[in-house]
């Protein structure tokens, strides 16, 4: 689309506390990975909690929904042409919820990665949709980024809607109308 001046889209994954699985939070536009990480921080981590964030080019994510899997031609079962590398496996739970990191598989293609993921996780974690992408595509924030990227948000209550008594104030303002 030559008329499309939008930047590329990056998927954003957030870890809310150490050891918690990364969750899909949405996407941001950015000219590249580094700026995507900072945009992701501004869009999704202004409110607590966040201890780590990944950004991944959206086109690098191989995805299948449960419906798509029914028609998915599973051949070739093993593609050994490419180099094996680590893929992250995400699944969206059947009940409501975000795409959630389940773990990693070693594969030489996204198709193979998904197949291995299904073998390993499908029975344990029935999912509505699956995402896999090579770990090398993700840019991650570092532990040393926490103080400047995420920690300050904890003290900024003015960023939370609960800090504003708007509803109570509006109710009080409307009260005279009701009486009159």
């Amino acid at each position, binding site marked *: 689309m030559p008329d499309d001046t939008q930047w590329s889209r990056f998927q954003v994954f957030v870890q809310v506390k150490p050891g918690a699985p990364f969750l899909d939070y949405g996407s941001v*536009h950015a000219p*590249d990975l580094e700026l995507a990480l*900072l945009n992701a*921080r*501004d869009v999704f981590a202004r409110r607590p909690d966040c201890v780590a964030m990944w950004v991944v080019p959206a086109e690098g994510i191989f995805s299948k929904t449960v419906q798509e899997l029914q028609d998915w031609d599973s051949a070739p079962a093993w593609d050994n042409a490419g180099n094996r590398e680590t893929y992250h496996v995400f699944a969206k739970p059947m009940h409501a919820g975000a795409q959630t990191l389940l773990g990693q598989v070693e594969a030489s293609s996204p198709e193979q990665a998904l197949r291995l993921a299904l073998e390993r996780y499908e029975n344990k974690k029935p999912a509505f949709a699956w995402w896999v992408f090579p770990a090398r595509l993700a840019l991650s924030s570092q532990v040393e980024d926490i*103080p*400047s*990227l995420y920690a*300050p948000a904890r003290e*900024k209550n003015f960023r939370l809607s609960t800090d504003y008594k708007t509803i109570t104030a509006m109710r009080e303002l409307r009260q005279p109308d009701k009486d009159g």
Partner: protein
Amino acid sequence: MDNHLKNTLRELLVALADDELILGHRDSEWCGHAPILEEDIAFANLALDEIGHANLWYSVLADLEEADRQSFVDRMVYWRDAPDFRNIQMVELPNGDWAFSMLRHYVFDSAEIERLNVLAESVFPPLAETAAKIRTEEYYHLRHTRLWLRRLGLGTAESRQRLQAALDQLWPYTGQLFEMPGEPDHLFALGIKMDQASLSWEAQVIPFLGECQLILPAGAERLLNRQEHSRHLPILLAEMQSVARLDPEAEW
């Protein structure tokens, strides 16, 4: 505390707070106008951070004056006129284009971190603690603006030309970045060594601007003090203060 020392501290705190407030207000003017939604949010975020930092500095001053923080800060922000402000001129200049706003932010953030490094060593604990607190957030600002400067400087011919034009306009104002009010002896007694900040700022900023393919403009620095303002400040203040001044008794 000795009265002379207290006076210097007062002037210093007003200068630090006013720099943050005025830059924060300029940042907020990008809200709804930035080239892309994500950067719009980023600039709104910068605005909130800088205004938050101003609030911290005004609050240190309120404590020093033994005044109520909330009403003191409101008075400082909404009820002073341009001649009473002590911000440097760089931060009151209109936003210009994206390159100008980014370059100004980079220049200010990089200088601010050096100023905060020095202030964090002050022997006056509220000053040192506040500086250390603000500093963590400024690392993020600097990271953001550095990424942008590189991309504009090494981007297209137009982006570089705009960034260079911004540098040509802003550079003469940089002489003010480390100029702090108050008696040098008193600043020394407070353990504040701005010369040191200025040197380490130059040592990192000049090479970085070179990496971004920018040429430092030759020519004289503008010698300004913090009591002098451009014609842009009263206009900015009129907008920032108009609502508060409509109803001095209003509770927010």
